[in-house]
């Protein structure tokens, strides 16, 4: 085991070269609905238990199933209303279980990025070859169902190995959502030396973290989102920032939460200097316009 992470170099959040998003936007805003499949009876993983209750874990399983049965279309209607295309963090097996959901999202030109096979299957306990096979299985499954090979990866249930990011870059990906070290995209070092970036996803604004871990009341969650937005937009005048709201169709789509969430989306999309976009578009734009400058500035700072 390593004592320090070596995926990126330290790079202070001051005096960085200026990023400007398309049409002079100061903030790139994206919403990442996680569309997940949790198995009722997954094989036992020696490193992590999927459910707090003995089999059948009805409370945990059934609320997640609610997300797909009820919550998905409710959230989709809301994102449609505010002109937001979702960037879906997808359990690839959902292509097999619930293709109707995939079709609704492809019709809308939403992005799909990989979130593993099931959210009850972890990276833990896999050899490097097995993890490579799992990553490729998810990529191929999503490409077959949507016509497009995923560009991004959020490891299933945020479970990682030392090779996760390397393997994903080698499989053809260009960005990771697994690193929470910055509010701007940053270059990521992988063993293949490919051009690969981290796009800010957010644990702090993730609805599951907000509602389940922080136990936020729905309007405090909306207020948290709006405060983060105000700050990142103001800082974006210096150099463009990224803000992501990761959601879950079993959290934010519940009827007692969706109104407060809507207030936050209405507020954000009411601003003109915001680029409402997807994870892939941010990664591609950054790679094309800012990656090289960032690399050389980081090199310089190291010397």
């Amino acid at each position, binding site marked *: 085991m390593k004592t320090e992470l070596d995926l990126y170099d330290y790079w202070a959040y001051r005096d960085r070269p200026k990023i400007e998003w398309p049409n002079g936007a100061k903030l790139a805003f994206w919403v990442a609905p996680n569309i997940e*499949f949790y*198995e*009722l*009876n997954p*094989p036992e*993983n020696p490193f992590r238990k999927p459910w707090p*209750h*003995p*089999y*059948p874990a*009805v*409370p945990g*399983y*059934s*609320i997640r*199933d*609610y997300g*797909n*049965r*009820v919550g*998905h*279309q*409710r959230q989709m209607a809301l994102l449609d209303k505010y002109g937001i295309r979702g960037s879906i963090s997808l359990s690839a*097996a959902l292509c*097999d*279980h*619930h*293709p*109707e*959901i995939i079709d609704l999202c492809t019709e809308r030109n939403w992005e799909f990025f990989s979130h593993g*096979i*099931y959210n009850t*299957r*972890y990276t833990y*306990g*896999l*050899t490097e070859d*097995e993890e490579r*096979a*799992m990553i490729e299985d998810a990529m191929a499954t999503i490409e077959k169902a949507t016509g497009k090979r995923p560009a991004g990866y959020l490891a299933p249930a945020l479970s990682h190995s030392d090779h996760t990011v390397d393997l994903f870059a080698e499989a053809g990906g260009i960005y990771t959502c697994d690193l929470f070290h910055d509010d701007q995209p940053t270059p990521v070092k992988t063993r293949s030396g490919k051009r690969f970036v981290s796009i800010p996803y957010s644990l702090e604004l993730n609805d599951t973290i907000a*509602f389940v871990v922080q*136990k936020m*009341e*729905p*309007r405090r969650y909306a207020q948290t989102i709006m405060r983060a937005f105000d700050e990142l937009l103001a800082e974006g005048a210096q150099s463009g920032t990224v803000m992501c709201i990761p959601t879950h169709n079993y959290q934010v789509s*519940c*009827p*007692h*939460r*969706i*109104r*407060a969430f809507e207030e936050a989306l209405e507020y954000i999309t009411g601003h003109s200097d915001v680029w409402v976009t997807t994870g892939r578009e941010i990664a591609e734009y950054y790679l094309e316009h800012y990656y090289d400058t960032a690399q050389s500035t980081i090199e310089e700072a190291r010397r």
Partner: protein
Amino acid sequence: MSNPLLDYPERHYGMDHDRYNWSMLQDREPIFWPENKPLALWININLQHFPLSGEKPQAAPPGALTMPYPDLRHYTLRDYGNRVGIYRLLREIERAKATVSFAISGALTEHRPTLIEHLKSLPFEWLGHSWNMLCMQAGAVEPNRELQWITQTKAALEQAGDRRIAGWFSPGRLQTKQTPELLAQARFKYHCDWVNDELPYKFNTDSGSLICLPSSLELDDVFVLSQNLHSEDSLEEQIKDAADALISEAQATSSGRLLCLNFHPWMMGQPHRIGTFRRILRYLLTDKGDLVWNASPSMIIEASGMHP
């Protein structure tokens, strides 16, 4: 690949089990409630018996006793619900002319017969809520033992209440792997434990089919106030927001929606919370009264066109 962690025997269309069919709420035939009201409202009250001692279940229910024996603080605080809290709730229910249902621990027929006698005089549906709050349907419970909890509860409630018991609400909304079969064998028509939908749906068992009328865990008073530690004002706001969101969705899609609420007399019947309960009922039944059809669970199942 030989690693079972990469073996996916249930990776195919639909669910990864055969308890029910996969379907999305918004893709189903529209539902029309009586008087064409957009929102049906089910209000359930859980009446629970927590024994002072007994064998610990594999999963503790919300509100379980936690202290070394004798745990007077939790025993008496739960009993408060059955002595004081419930009568406060009933006063408000009567004032608001609300329709509610009671999910009742069977053991209350023996331990609190005066309460049961009073509930019998009210025109509300009763549901089985296991024998007591140690009879948890969680993990490896011997099927005959679980069946006895179910049948004993049904018989005691039917006899004491002089009414048919068609619905089952497991404590903690937990089930064993055989619970649905046992409920079907005991001739229950519906259960409320899988919170995966907002409308009743058909639930398969090896002993015939049931209906699942999904209750809402997320708006349960104990979940919101005691697990999430939200304020009473936030609970009220969340319930109002939920009702408003469901009414708008029902109107936009021309199909009825359903709001399920769940209250515990030992939680909501406290003097500092009863005002919240009163305001919730007033909002749903007076302010939004023209849009809300408040009914019993069996009436809601029937109106949704479900037949077990």
